[in-house]
């Protein structure tokens, strides 16, 4: 990663300075750029209302709100989980729980908890493809949510006893005298230590310690002492008659565990491109250990830090599909909330289908390592899906061709014809979207009419922190072309929003 000359490299940073809380100054003030940055990392991006609120609250107030959730978040989440249980029970292919989770991400009032639940889903990547039970996948999701901001050891103990995980990594096949190494290996390689911090013998011995762990018929945890290997095991230098719980304790006594987890969270919250030196992460690792792996405290330190509010973090990640889609939805749909008079429900199914096509099928990560993320999100197929989604969203067509998910009246238009015919398609004008789904409502909300103003307002909302100057000029020329007014101008604005959502700047988190 090349940085402008004025910015020190990661090796040059003083670690204790880097993780000290950031204080805005007159020269480097708290503004939309940083508020949006915080919302992209700690949530699924800001709505317009979030930005206005964050500017008023300041960095600490905004972070408090994100870490604690909105006042109704606990009630809301409990209610949502009850609804989710019912939805999961009636789900046969995962579509219900996928739609449910997207709804929770948007409406739970605690987006940071949902964001970290997504992080843990990726970390403990379990797939419905093998588990074959939406209710068990939903139960795992609830487990991840309840521990998302807790301590790591209880989380690791709980996920190791989670039915979906045990099915996923063959716990019930791991028997005394007949060990199956699947869980023991992934526990060390992917969940806690990383390659190089254990050996094959540790894996074999740990597998013996986990024998006898299995899901019960109700989808809970069962321990069958008859299937458990009571013998002595030697794991990471400790010898005893260990069971699975001991393995987790031993694993988390390794200094490598904090380094592995902090590094992964650094990629998620700060920068996925750079490989930070151990020295830079060491203060985080040290306090992560001394707080018994307190996830919320670690997340707070990172998100409040000077390093987080620096060029080392700003736009140094590529948005994953969920971030891309929900971020765009929250921006395009104004202040998206059920209390709004012109609120319309989202076409959840359409969103699920779009996310799948972009390569992030929730509850079905590609393998136990999770989504590889970063630049691998973007290939010609997924990039095209992003653009096509952004176009449908900005033009108010999202879900127009998905049964049950329509948000515009599709009268007189058969979208399937459109799909069959070749490109380009010449049809009648797209219908005017309902106000709640119309990005052009900004014209009225902000009283805008001049192309320069329109474009700078759009950029200030969609990509705060600026874009390449040539982009702004080109967008302004596009909006100004032919001096449109009225509906034609509104349409032009929607088209410009589509284009903004495809820019490199917008694709970065």
């Amino acid at each position, binding site marked *: 990663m090349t940085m402008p000359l004025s910015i020190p490299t990661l090796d040059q940073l003083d670690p204790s300075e880097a993780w000290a809380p950031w204080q805005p100054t007159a020269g480097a003030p708290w503004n939309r750029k940083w508020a949006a940055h915080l919302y992209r990392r700690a949530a699924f991006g800001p709505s317009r209302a979030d930005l206005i609120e964050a500017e008023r609250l300041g960095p600490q107030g905004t972070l408090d709100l994100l870490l604690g959730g909105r006042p109704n978040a606990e009630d809301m989440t409990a209610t949502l989980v009850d609804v989710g249980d019912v939805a999961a029970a009636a789900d046969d292919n995962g579509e219900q729980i996928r739609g449910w989770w997207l709804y929770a991400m948007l409406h739970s009032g605690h987006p940071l908890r949902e964001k970290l639940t997504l992080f843990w889903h990726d970390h403990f990547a379990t797939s419905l493809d093998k588990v074959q039970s939406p209710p068990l996948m939903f139960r795992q999701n609830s487990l991840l949510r309840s521990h998302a901001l807790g301590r790591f050891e209880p989380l690791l103990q709980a996920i190791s006893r989670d039915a979906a995980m045990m099915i996923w990594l063959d716990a019930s096949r791991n028997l005394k005298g007949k060990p199956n190494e699947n869980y023991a290996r992934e526990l060390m390689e992917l969940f806690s230590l990383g390659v190089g911090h254990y050996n094959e013998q540790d894996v074999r011995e740990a597998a013996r310690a986990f024998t006898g762990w299995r899901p019960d018929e109700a989808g809970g945890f069962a321990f069958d002492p008859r299937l458990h290997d009571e013998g002595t095991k030697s794991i990471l230098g400790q010898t005893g008659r260990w069971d699975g719980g001991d393995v987790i304790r031993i694993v988390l006594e390794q200094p490598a565990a904090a380094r592995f987890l902090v590094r992964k969270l650094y990629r998620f919250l700060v920068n996925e491109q750079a490989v930070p030196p151990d020295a830079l992460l060491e203060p985080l690792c040290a306090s992560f250990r001394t707080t018994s792996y307190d996830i919320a405290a670690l997340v707070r330190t990172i998100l409040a830090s000077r390093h987080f509010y620096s060029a080392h973090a700003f736009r140094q990640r590529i948005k994953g599909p969920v971030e891309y889609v929900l971020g765009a939805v929250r921006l395009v749909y104004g202040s998206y909330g059920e209390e709004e008079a012109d609120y319309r429900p989202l076409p959840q199914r359409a969103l699920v289908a779009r996310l799948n096509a972009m390569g992030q099928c929730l509850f079905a990560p590609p393998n136990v390592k999770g989504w590889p993320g970063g630049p691998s999100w973007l*290939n*010609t197929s997924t990039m095209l899906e992003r653009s*096509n989604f952004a176009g449908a969203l900005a033009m108010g067509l999202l879900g127009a061709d998905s049964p049950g998910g329509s948000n515009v009246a599709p009268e007189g238009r058969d979208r399937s014809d459109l799909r069959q015919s070749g490109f380009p398609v010449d049809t*009648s004008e797209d219908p005017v979207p309902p106000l709640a789904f119309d990005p052009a409502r900004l014209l009225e909300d902000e009283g805008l009419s001049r192309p320069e103003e329109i474009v700078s307002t759009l950029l200030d909302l969609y990509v705060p922190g600026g874009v390449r100057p040539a982009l702004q000029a080109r967008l302004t020329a596009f909006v100004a072309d032919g001096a449109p007014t009225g509906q034609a101008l509104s349409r032009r604005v929607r088209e410009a929003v589509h284009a903004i959502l*495809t820019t490199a700047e917008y694709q970065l988190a």
Partner: protein
Amino acid sequence: MWNRRQFLTRTLKGASLVALNAIVPQFVSRTAQAAAADKDTILVVLEMAGGNDGLNTVVPYADDLYHKARPTLRQVEKRVIRLDDHVGLHPGLRGLQSMWDQGQLAVVQGVGYPNPQRSHFESMDIWQSADPRRTLKTGWLGRATTEFDHNSGGVPILHLGTASLPLALAGAAGGGAVTVNQANPFRLELGGGKVEQHKARRELLEALATAPSEASEGDLVSFVQRRQLQTLTAVEQLRELLDGPNAVPRQGSGLSQRLQLIAGLIAKGFGTRIFYVSLGGFDTHAAQGPAHETLLDDLSNAVGAFFRTLKANGHDHRVRLLTFSEFGRRVKENDSRGTDHGAGSCLFVAGPSVKGGVVGKHPSLADLDEGDLKFHTDFRSVYATLLDDWLGCDSKAVLGATWNPLKELERRS
């Protein structure tokens, strides 16, 4: 004068919209015209993700140790497709039998690399980057495309799938490998409106994707921008083939359908020389028997049908298909009627250009490395042979060292 590759590379890196507009129609016609050449050799790589059980793919049915190690999973002589007095193919591979009978299937045994990794991800990366030290961030196929001349327009490698771009394809010439997800239209959708409105929007998207960046090449903004431009360009390049009235028919997105699409593209004269597909599910820790058989059945039927289609169109002689997996599995089956991660394994090279037969000895079951088969043939020797002899590019430049070719895999002369 720039050669074409340099020209395309520079254009796709995208300094000016004018250049893009000028180049797009040429791309399309070049892609189509490549049919005239009709001589380039083509390599299709089929990834078997999850760690294919090599020992139950090429089965040493005559070895008692095999039957002892595999009490429930073993394939007996009566069931296997006999290759010689010692080994036979798993019965699920029946779809490849006619290629074997016609001498079009090379079965390479004992393939691996030193100090094998038993992590899926580490080992898969090693096979894909061809770098056991794990320092290279590009793939062997990606690097290969910078070493040979091709008529592929801007599509040096076509990847058919839903997953992210495999490491093997990273670093490809021009804008990089192109991915098409067969389940979705490969089309820029702009909703309703007039032709000129669509044109203006398309030009806007292109302009935003080509707007100069002050940042360096390695910068994320530049990366995303290049990918965006590559996507817009690829949509144009592939439009006639995938989306027009004379498009190659697309049905479903299973392995066979993906291979059939490749066969259709080759028949249309699509100039790309490297295609990549993946089949997952080989991580058979438990109840392996039926699952593995189904996978091999899918694979062999898809590959058999692929070459039949190629043959019907007269292109089979210039296509080879290589299979690989990140590792084989432990010799001794586990007590879940499955197998755990192992090492050395086997692979196939298929096509009429291949001298069919068994290549190399089956690794000994009496002399194991921590319960795993020992390899005798480094996978980079297989790659080197395909690079030098089949694709006609310098394997040393791609692999960073000279590897002894496998004479058995060289073309029939």
